[in-house]
């Protein structure tokens, strides 16, 4: 009854779990698109070695797919969406200034420090910038660049620190379908008086909303004492030809000396310091001039041209940067490390990848206009976008350019990391600016597209039919030479990355084939549990039947002596067995029938019928093969040790307990590590964690049932052994053996066979672990602890059984 009920229930539960896993995968594994098409050899080392890709991995790339190839894919009747991505490069927004008002005759000293940070470290601009403004155009700047930006008279203006942002080209129509976002601003005609030729040749760009512009400005303002004509004459006499600017160009050290010794003492040293940050409306490609709000310490955009001044540069986007992928070092234990490749000239901030400077068009010398107007590349911000990637989804296909999950320090999840203002961070940012794919060729040549995200038409879930259809399309494109990935079931996972100069960082990566991993892992676990359960149950049933048949032997021999015919004896035996097997089977089947009627769950009912039938066949097999008809034989050549002799003599009685000890050891020394390994690899992804959460209870239930069934067999076999040897125990007691001595005698015997079986079980476990997962010293040690535990448990059960029979 125990076997039929537990085995039926367990197998039904495993089948139910299997259905749950398949359903979860079908429901959640399909993302917003199905197939990712990339140029040949597009896979990074990380992808090839670990099958993971970084967040926003499509924000980089040298192209390789032409507009014509994209059009051909888009026109395929099986394609619902074909959304291209072309990485254009990293650009700064329009170079512009922030300003503070002043009286034209006012004498003031300004000092500006720029800072950028990556969430952990702050880097200060290595060059100090200052301006001594004595009013009416009499100025002494720290450099020519400061003068270029300085409007002067009533406006003190200084450049707003530049920061670099990833720009990606998309097709507004296809991307709109993929993301349900309106990208039509990218198709509009734009104009701006602060742009070259009023924006006639410029490209509309949409900025990402709510992005940290990782720069802050420290502005120091101090009053200057008025300068007399005599003082001015004395200063000028020290400059080369009485010309400060010429001195600056020819002998910068001398210029600095004159400033420090003559002009700097004019400061009243009663300064006011402003810590300025861009206000919340600042997006990466915002282009308006900025004004200092002295109340809020913010740098605010001012769109009214009649109340703001400053400087701006037409050719800010003439130079961009193309980043190479981060070179991750993969250590022996598959952890990742990133090394610093250099440092930035302006801030001294570390860089972690190589990048190349790209000049998009040439300028005419001494005119500051493009050689060819058609080559001009400049952006005019025309709206913003905000797309949440991977939010609330288990297996969203990574759109590749919108990921906003920031890495964080391993020891403090609140310390988020983001790229500083300089190009070369180890973090792939989402696209901070989007332009239309129409402009990609201008910036990147004939084959600008880095990837096409394809959604297959006419599919509603990720089932077998859908998977087949997706696979056949993918194979067709693969045959054309593209790198093709089926992304259904892709899911995020967090990994530790050792970043030089920062420490251990938790970073999000995406696996493209999470659904397959979850399914295959589940299949392996299901198989392991089923095999173990079947072995335990079979041992239990065979042992029980065997003992019952052996017990019948004596009774049947007596009946035969009394003159019963073999036919009559067999008839009586079958009648008895009909009751022994039939009653529990009927009770269990009826129980599952009621359960099925109540909860409409019929699988346990069907399985219980099959198991009952299987038990009958097993009995018939044992009965017909006469395996139970053996006799205990006195050994011809006794062994030297009594313990060994006893073990050999009772070998058939202890066989079942031995096998169960072996199985329990495997259960203890192999299954936990196997489960941990599988669960760890599965739960790395969000869909895996979800699916595991759904079936976790079933796992625990099955393992508990396994232990119960195994321990019951061990207890029954030992109890039976003790029952058989009850006369022996009594004899020892008559002979005056102390209870302790009797216990020691029997436990030594049990220790021997249980020890041998457990050690064999441990050995099998270690062998399986080294075959299926990685054998480590920790596993060996913990396995040994498990082995001792099982042995102690067996001895405990034996002592209990012994106590029972020594009392009777």
């Amino acid at each position, binding site marked *: 009854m125990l076997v039929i009920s537990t085995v039926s229930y367990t197998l039904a539960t495993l089948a139910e779990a299997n259905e749950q896993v398949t359903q979860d995968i079908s429901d959640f594994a399909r993302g917003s698109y199905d197939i990712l098409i990339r140029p040949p050899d597009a896979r990074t080392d990380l992808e090839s070695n670990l099958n993971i890709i970084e967040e926003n991995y499509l924000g980089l790339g040298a192209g390789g797919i032409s507009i014509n190839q994209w059009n051909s894919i888009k026109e395929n009747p099986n394609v619902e969406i074909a959304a291209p991505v072309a990485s254009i490069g990293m650009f700064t927004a329009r170079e512009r200034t922030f300003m503070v008002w002043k009286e034209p005759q006012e004498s003031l000293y300004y000092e500006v420090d720029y800072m950028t940070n990556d969430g952990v470290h702050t880097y200060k601009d290595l060059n100090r910038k200052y301006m001594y403004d004595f009013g009416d155009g009499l*100025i002494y700047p720290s450099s020519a660049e400061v003068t270029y930006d300085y409007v002067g008279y009533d406006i003190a203006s200084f450049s707003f620190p530049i920061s670099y942002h990833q720009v990606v080209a998309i097709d507004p129509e296809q991307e709109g379908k993929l993301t349900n976002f309106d990208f039509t601003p990218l198709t509009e005609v734009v104009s701006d008086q602060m742009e070259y030729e009023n924006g006639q040749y410029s490209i509309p760009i949409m900025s990402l909303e709510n992005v940290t512009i990782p720069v802050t400005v420290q502005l120091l303002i101090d009053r200057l004492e008025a300068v007399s004509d005599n003082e001015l004459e004395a200063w000028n006499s020290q400059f080369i030809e009485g010309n400060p600017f010429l001195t600056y160009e020819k002998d910068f050290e001398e210029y600095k000396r004159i400033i420090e010794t003559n002009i700097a003492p004019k400061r009243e040293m009663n300064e006011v310091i402003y810590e300025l940050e861009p206000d919340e409306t600042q997006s990466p490609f915002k282009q308006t001039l900025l004004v200092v709000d002295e109340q809020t310490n913010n740098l605010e955009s001012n769109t009214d041209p*009649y109340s703001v001044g400053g400087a701006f540069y037409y050719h800010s986007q003439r130079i961009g940067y193309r980043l190479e992928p981060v070179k991750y070092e993969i250590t022996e234990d598959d952890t990742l490390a990133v090394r610093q490749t250099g440092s930035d000239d302006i801030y001294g901030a570390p860089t972690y990848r190589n990048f190349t400077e790209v000049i998009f068009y040439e300028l005419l010398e001494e005119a500051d206009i493009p050689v060819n107007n058609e080559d001009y590349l400049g952006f005019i911000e025309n709206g913003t976008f905000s797309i949440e990637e991977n939010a609330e989804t288990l297996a969203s296909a990574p759109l590749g350019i919108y990921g906003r999950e920031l890495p964080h320090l391993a020891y403090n999840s609140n310390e988020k990391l983001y790229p500083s203002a300089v190009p070369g961070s180890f973090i792939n940012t989402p696209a901070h600016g989007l332009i239309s794919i129409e402009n990609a060729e201008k910036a990147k040549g004939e084959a600008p597209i880095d990837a096409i995200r394809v959604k297959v038409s006419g599919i509603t879930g990720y089932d077998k039919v859908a998977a087949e259809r997706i696979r056949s399309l993918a194979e067709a494109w693969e045959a054309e030479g593209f790198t093709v990935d089926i992304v259904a079931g892709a899911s995020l996972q967090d990994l530790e990355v050792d970043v030089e100069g920062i420490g251990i960082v938790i970073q999000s990566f995406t696996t493209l084939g999470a659904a397959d991993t979850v399914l295959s892992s589940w299949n392996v676990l299901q198989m392991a549990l089923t095999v173990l359960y079947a072995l335990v149950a079979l041992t239990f049933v065979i042992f029980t039947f065997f003992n019952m048949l052996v017990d019948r032997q004596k009774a049947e021999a007596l009946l035969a002596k009394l003159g019963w015919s073999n036919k009559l004896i067999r008839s009586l035996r079958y009648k008895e067995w009909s009751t022994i097997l039939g009653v529990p089977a009927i009770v269990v089947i009826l129980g599952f029938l009621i359960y099925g009627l109540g909860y409409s769950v019929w699988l346990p009912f069907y399985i219980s019928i099959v198991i009952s039938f299987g038990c009958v066949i097993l009995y018939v097999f044992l009965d017909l093969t006469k395996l139970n008809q053996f006799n205990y034989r006195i050994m011809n050549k006794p062994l030297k040790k009594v313990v060994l002799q006893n073990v050999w003599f009772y070998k058939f009685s202890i066989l079942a307990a031995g096998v169960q000890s072996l199985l329990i050891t495997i259960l203890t020394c192999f299954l936990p590590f196997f489960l941990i390994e599988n669960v760890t690899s599965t739960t790395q992804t969000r869909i895996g964690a979800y699916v595991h959460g759904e079936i976790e209870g079933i796992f625990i239930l099955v393992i508990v049932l396994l232990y119960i069934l195994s321990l019951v067999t061990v207890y029954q076999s030992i109890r039976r052994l003790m029952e058989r040897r009850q006369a022996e125990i009594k004899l020892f007691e008559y002979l005056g053996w102390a209870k302790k001595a009797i216990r020691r005698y029997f436990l030594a015997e049990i220790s021997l066979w249980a020890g041998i079986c457990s050690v064999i079980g441990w050995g099998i476990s270690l062998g399986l672990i080294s075959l299926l997962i990685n054998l480590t010293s920790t596993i060996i040690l913990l396995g040994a602890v498990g082995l001792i535990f099982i042995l102690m448990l067996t001895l405990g059960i034996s002592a209990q059984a012994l106590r029972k029979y020594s009392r009777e």
Partner: protein
Amino acid sequence: MKKLLVGTLLVFGFLVGFKGLDLEAAEFEESRIDSNEVELMSAQTFLNPTRINGRTHTYYNVTVSVNVGGNAHFSFNPGISGAPTRSGPGSFSRNFSQSWTSNSITTYTYWGSVTTQDYGPAPRANGTAVISY
């Protein structure tokens, strides 16, 4: 008789009416080609000076001005590669201080522009700086 009178009146009526239409059309045409009036309606940018014969590393004051009053935004570009355009609000004019560098004799084309609140952007005005070492 009555018929003749009515007919004569109709003919003369048409003649007078058509003559009047011709006159109106001529007047309309005349108003479209009044270019002097158009000139007076738009703003003009002025630069002072429009030519600088100067020395390297020396500051010169350039004034960008406009011929109409009201709020205006003045811009000045020195024509130096890599140098930004500077701008600021004002009324009628704005001064910009600028220096140019040269190792020999170099000609720079600088320009100024104005956008006024009432008349919108005015055409640029160009100037030439010939800078010697």
